[in-house]
C-alpha cells in the first residue's frame, strides 16, 4: 500500500536506510554522545569541587602567587629569601629543574654515546661491559637509583669537620662537594664575551666555508680554526688583563663551609641517578642508529677515498642521526620529567617547591595545574623543535 502511495522512490530505497544503519549519521550520534558524556562528567566534578572548596573554605585563583612564600630553599640560581613571593619561589624551582635537566641531558648524551659505541666495539671485554651496564641500569627503577646514590653521599661521606680534602681547594663531605673557584675579576667576563664572539664568527665562517666548497670545491677548515681561536684568544685576553690568579678558597666556618662553590649531595645524587639511568637507554638508541647505516655505505665512502673521519662525519653520522634523534628526544624529555623525582630526595625542583606551596596554601588544583603547565610547556616546545628538525633532516626523495 505504501509503496503505491509514493511511486518513484523505489529506486532510492537502498540509500534511505534507517539512521542506525547509516555510517555517517551513526558517527554524528556517537560523537555527540561522547561529547555529552565528557561535558557531563566535567560539570559534575566541577560542581563537586566548587562545593568542596566552599565548605573547606579554600581560596581559589592564583592570587596567592603574590603572597610571601616564607620558606627557605636550599639551593638557588637567583637571589631568594623566605620573604620573597611564591612567584619567585616557583621561578627558583623552575630554574633548578632546568639546571638539573640541562646538565643531565648533556652528560647523558655524552655517556650514552660512549656506552653505545663501546657496545659495538670489536673488543670483547668492552662490548660485554657495556652490555652489562645497559642491561642492569635499564632494569633498576630510577627512584631506587636516586635513593641509592643519595644514601651513598649522605652516609659514606664524613661530616664537614672531617671533610675529605684530596687536594687543595676541594672538600668532600656529606654537605656536598665544595671546590674553589677563581675570584671575580673583570678578565673572566671579558673572556666569556670573547669566547661567545668567536663561536658566532665561527658559525658564520662555517656556513661561508660550506658554500664556498659547494661552489668551488675549495674546502675551508672553519671548525678547526674556530676551535683553535676559541682556546687561544680567551687565554690571550686573560694575559692582557694581567693574568689574575686569586682563588675563592672554601674554608670551614662553624659547621659549614663558606666560599667556593658547593654542589649539594641532593643535586649530585639526582644528576647521577638520572644520567646513569637514562644513558643506558640512550646507549641502545645510539647502537641501533649506528647499526642502521648499512655496511655498503661505509665501504662505498671508503672506496671513493674519504678518510675515516670523513666517513664518520659525512656518511655515517648524517644517516645515523636521522634514526637516533627522535627516540633520543623522547629520552631527553623522560629525563626532564623524571627530574621531578627530586622531591623524593629533597632537591628543590619545581615540583618540590610547588608541593610545599600546596601544603601551605591548600590550593592543590592551582598547584598541580602549574606543574602540568610547566611540563607541558617543556614537552610541547621540544616537540615543535623536533618537528622542525625532522623536516630539516628528512630524506629528500624524488
Amino acid at each position, binding site marked *: 500500500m505504501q509503496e503505491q502511495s509514493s511511486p518513484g522512490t523505489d529506486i532510492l530505497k537502498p540509500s534511505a536506510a534507517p539512521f542506525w544503519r547509516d555510517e555517517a549519521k551513526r*558517527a554524528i550520534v*556517537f*560523537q*555527540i554522545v*561522547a*561529547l555529552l558524556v*565528557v561535558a557531563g562528567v566535567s560539570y559534575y*566534578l566541577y560542581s*563537586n*569541587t566548587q*562545593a*568542596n*572548596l566552599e*565548605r573547606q573554605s579554600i581560596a581559589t585563583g592564583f592570587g596567592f602567587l603574590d603572597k610571601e612564600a616564607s620558606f627557605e630553599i636550599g639551593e638557588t640560581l637567583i637571589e631568594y629569601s623566605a620573604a620573597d613571593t611564591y612567584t619567585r619561589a616557583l621561578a627558583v624551582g623552575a630554574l633548578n629543574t632546568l639546571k638539573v635537566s640541562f646538565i643531565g641531558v648533556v652528560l647523558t648524551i655524552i655517556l650514552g654515546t660512549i656506552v653505545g659505541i663501546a657496545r659495538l*666495539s*670489536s*673488543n*670483547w*671485554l*668492552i662490548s660485554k*661491559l657495556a652490555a652489562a651496564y645497559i*642491561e*642492569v641500569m*635499564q*632494569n*633498576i*627503577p*630510577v*627512584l*631506587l*637509583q636516586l*635513593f*641509592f646514590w643519595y*644514601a*651513598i653521599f649522605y*652516609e*659514606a661521606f664524613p661530616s664537614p669537620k672531617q671533610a675529605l680534602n684530596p687536594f687543595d681547594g676541594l672538600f668532600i663531605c656529606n654537605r656536598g662537594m665544595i671546590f674553589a673557584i677563581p675570584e671575580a675579576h673583570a678578565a673572566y667576563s671579558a673572556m666569556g664575551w670573547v669566547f661567545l664572539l668567536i663561536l658566532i664568527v665561527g658559525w658564520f665562517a662555517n656556513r661561508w666555508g660550506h658554500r664556498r666548497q659547494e661552489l668551488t670545491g675549495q674546502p675551508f677548515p672553519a671548525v678547526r680554526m674556530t676551535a683553535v681561536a676559541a682556546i687561544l684568544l680567551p687565554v690571550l685576553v686573560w694575559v692582557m688583563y694581567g693574568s689574575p690568579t686569586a682563588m675563592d678558597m672554601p674554608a670551614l666556618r662553624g659547621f659549614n663551609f663558606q666560599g667556593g662553590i658547593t654542589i649539594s649531595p641532593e643535586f649530585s645524587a639526582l644528576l647521577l641517578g638520572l644520567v646513569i639511568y637514562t644513558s643506558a637507554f640512550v646507549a641502545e638508541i645510539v647502537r641501533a642508529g649506528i647499526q642502521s647505516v648499512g655496511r655498503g655505505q661505509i665501504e662505498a665512502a671508503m672506496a671513493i677515498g674519504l678518510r675515516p673521519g670523513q666517513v664518520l662525519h659525512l656518511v655515517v653520522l648524517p644517516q645515523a642521526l636521522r634514526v637516533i634523534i627522535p627516540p633520543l628526544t623522547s629520552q631527553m624529555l623522560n629525563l626532564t*620529567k*623524571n627530574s*621531578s*623525582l627530586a*622531591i*623524593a630526595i629533597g632537591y628543590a625542583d619545581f*615540583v618540590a617547591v610547588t*608541593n610545599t606551596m*600546596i601544603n601551605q596554601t591548600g590550593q*592543590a*588544583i592551582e598547584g*598541580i595545574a602549574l*606543574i*602540568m603547565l610547566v*611540563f*607541558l610547556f*617543556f*614537552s*610541547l616546545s621540544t616537540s615543535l623543535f623536533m618537528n622542525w628538525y625532522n623536516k630539516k633532516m628528512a630524506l629528500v626523495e624524488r
Partner: protein
Amino acid sequence: MSVPEQATREYLDAPIRKIGALAWLKENLFNNWYNSLLTVLTLLALCYVVPPFFKWAFVDSLWNTSAEACRDIEGACWSIVPNNIKFIILGFFPEGQEWRPILAMILLLSLVIYSKEWTRWNKYLGWLWVAGLIVMGTLMYGGVFGMPVVETAQWSGLPLTMMLSFFGMVAAYPLGVLLALGRRSKMPAIKTLCVVYIEMIRGVPLISLLFMSSIMFPLFLPDGMTIDKVLRAQVAIILFTAAYIAEVVRGGLQAMPRGQYEASDSLGLNFRQTMRLVILPQALKIVIPPTVGILLSAFKDTSLVVIIALYDVLKTTKVTLSNPKWTGYSTEAYIFLAVLYFICCYAMSSYSRRLEKDLHTGH
C-alpha cells in the same frame, strides 16, 4: 678434481692461530694496538674496583646476624635483609595473617608462569584468570571463611607492588589500544578527545598524576564519598601507562598497509571484525618490543608511589632503614631491592623476546 682436494683437506691440521684460547684472546681483545691498550686499561680499572667490592660484599660481610654484630665489621651487613625480610616483603599486613598475601602472590606467579606458553591462551585460561583474581582479592581483603578484613591501607610491600604493576599493565593495555583506535578514527570529536588526552598525559610526569590522585581528586568527589587511596594511585598508573601504550599501538596501526583494510572491506567484514581479525593481530604483534618497554617502565614506575606515601616494597625498605638499629646499611638494602627489580624486569624482557620469536609468522 674435487676429490683429491678433499682428501688433502682431511690431513691438514687446523691452523693453530685460528683456534684455542690464545687465538680467541688475540681476535677479541688484542686485535690492534688501541684495542690492546683499551683491554689493559679496562682490566686495570676492574682490578681497582672488583676485588674491593668482592671483599666488601662477600669476604668481610655478615649474612645473618643481629644489628649489633654489624657495627664492628668493615664489609657489607647483609643481615639487614633476613632480619627484616618479613616487613620488607609484607609491610603492615596483620600479624598471623601473613600466609594470605604469600598465597596470593604464589597464585599470581603460578598463573603467570602457566600462561607463559602462548599456545595455552584460550577462553578457559581467561576464566581461570578471572577465578584466580577473585581468589587473590578474597585472600587479600578477607571478610569471609573466618579471615578478618584487612583494609587496603594495610596492603603493603611486595603484594602492593605486584598488584599496582599487574593491574597497571593489564588494564592499561586495552585502554591504550582503544585510545590508539580513537586517535586514528575519522570522527573529529573522538579523535580530538583522544589526541588531547594522549598528548597531555605524555607531557606531564607521573608524579603530577599521582599528586592529582592523592591530593586533588578527593576535592572532585561529592561530600562524604571517598575512594580508596590505593585504588586512586592504581587508576593514575593505568591512565598514565595507557597514553604511552596508545602511542606505541598507533605506530603499529600506521605500519599496516592500506591493502589489509581494503582486503577486509572486500571480504565484507565490518569495522569491528576488520580490527579484531585482521588489523590488530598484526599491528600488536609488530609493536611487541616497544610495548614491553612501556610495560617495564610501568612496573618500575610503581615505585613512585613512595612519594604519595603508599607502602610499596621500596617504602617498606626505607622504613626499615629509618629504624635506628639498621640505619646506615642502605647500600645493602637497596642492592637487595635492585636485584629483586632486575630479576623481574629481566625475566619480562627475555620472555618478550621469546614471544616475539614464537609469534613471528613472516619469512
